[in-house]
């Protein structure tokens, strides 16, 4: 089986500082990979390198494209990479405001990717937008409201709808539940888990919240100072951490 995404030796320096160093892993279709670590451990740098927002200094990010099979997205041309990022890829930002157009209605936000890939029938676009709003549990009557009138949780769900409307195969998520209160977090996680299962999505989730990866991720990588220090099945890493830092991380979670 060909991996959907194969990361080989990705390294990114910020001047003399290490962003992330020599990260390699394979992600297979339908798999959800969690990346955890403390702030500044290079999780987001790695995610941005994989999603094409940053160019890694060294390394390959090979994506199994629909048309041409495995291609290195670091060396492919920018139009191709941008095309990928609005069709087969999705990127969910930590702050919904970074991923949404706040001056455009919810329907327009969801429809943007459809229009970007050439959809030109207003009725169809609107129907799909409404369908997606309902799938992320936003009332269809809110379709013409701007995201500024939405609560934080709704904005985050709208961002997810906007990203998934073109049926991507790989979703990058950067702290998708950050900044939300716990009950809203639980609902969002539930929704994400449902969508990932139903659509057979592959996802890479960066978070510092171990509960999120416990619920969503099949596999887990623990990062510290830009390097992967432990990787394995989620339950294995969380229940039997081997590296001293992983043990510290797991034991730091407050039990209620």
């Amino acid at each position, binding site marked *: 089986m060909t991996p959907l995404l194969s990361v080989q030796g990705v390294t990114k320096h910020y001047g003399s500082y290490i962003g992330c160093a020599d990260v390699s892993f394979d992600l297979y279709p339908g798999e959800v990979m969690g990346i955890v670590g403390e702030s500044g451990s290079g999780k987001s740098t790695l995610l941005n390198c994989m999603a094409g927002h940053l160019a890694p200094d060294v390394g390959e990010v090979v994506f199994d494209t629909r048309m041409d099979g495995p291609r290195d997205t670091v060396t492919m041309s920018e139009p191709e990479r941008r095309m990928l990022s609005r069709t087969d890829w999705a990127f969910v930002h930590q702050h919904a405001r970074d991923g949404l157009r706040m001056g*455009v209605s919810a*329907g327009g936000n969801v*429809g*943007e990717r459809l*229009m*970007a890939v050439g959809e030109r029938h207003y009725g169809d676009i609107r129907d799909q937008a409404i369908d997606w709003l309902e799938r992320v549990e936003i009332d269809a009557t809110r379709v*013409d409201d701007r995201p500024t009138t939405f609560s934080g949780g709704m904005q985050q769900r709208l961002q997810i709808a906007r990203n998934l409307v073109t049926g991507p195969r790989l979703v990058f998520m950067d702290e998708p539940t950050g900044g939300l209160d716990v009950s809203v977090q639980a609902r969002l996680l539930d929704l994400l888990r449902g969508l990932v299962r139903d659509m057979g999505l592959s996802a890479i989730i960066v978070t510092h919240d171990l509960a999120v990866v416990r619920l969503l991720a099949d596999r887990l990588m623990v990062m510290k100072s830009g390097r992967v220090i432990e990787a394995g099945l989620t339950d294995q890493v969380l229940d039997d951490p081997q590296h001293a830092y992983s043990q510290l991380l797991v034991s730091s979670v407050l039990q209620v």
Partner: protein
Amino acid sequence: MTDQSYNFAYLDEQTKRMIRRAILKGLAIPGYQVPFASREMPMPYGWGTGGVQVSAAVLTPEDCFKVIDQGADDTTNAVSIRTFFERTARVETTTATAEASVIQTRHRIPEEPLSKGQIVVYQVPIPEPLRFLEPRESETRKMHSLEEYGLMHVKLYEDISRHGHIATSYAYPVRVEGRYVMDPSPIPKFDNPKLGDMAAIQLFGAGREQRIYALPPYTQVVSLDFEDHPFEASKAAHCCGLCGAQDSYLDEVIIDDAGGRMFVCSDTDYCEARRAAGHKGKDAA
């Protein structure tokens, strides 16, 4: 005094060359916004500094010059620009569309079809059609270069979801030769169909924003729309009160304090020519 200290039509020779190069590049890549080093003009930004520079760069002593502002030859902007070139270039001026070889215009295309050999110069306030959706210039340039125009349709989508139809009625975005999306300057969308396949050369100058773009003759220009909400060139559903024309773009004019109003052609030259030919509208004295 050297022989170069005087130059025809206001601009110095180096400026004129620079603008002509920008115009030629614009004509070679229809719809592409060419940056140019816009000069200070003896008028405020927003009054047609871009148009004046383009006109000055293309005028020759044999040209006959016409200026229209919202279709009219007799408004302040039109009169002052016409006088400016009468004094600085000593070119012949006219108000008759057919006689003019260079027509500088703000917000309208003349009703009378333009012919081969004529040049239309548009005054453009904001040349970037994507500006109100994407404020970053670096990003809009990238979107143009990669033909990522989905965002333009988001604007039209918002129009329909808010108003039930595409409510953009001027500066209606067009696609040029299937490539660049272009802002046709704030002409009413009634004039959009005239942009395409026109026999005259169309030049667009934005002075404050320092951009020139162009449409060579007989260029394909398509107004953007949705399959189920096609583009419609709209105008007021009346005929001209003075000349009775049914096919021209109309201005609504309030004529008393009791809500009385009349509709008249916005193109004054067209209206006058029709009246001279004996056409009469219902409000004509």
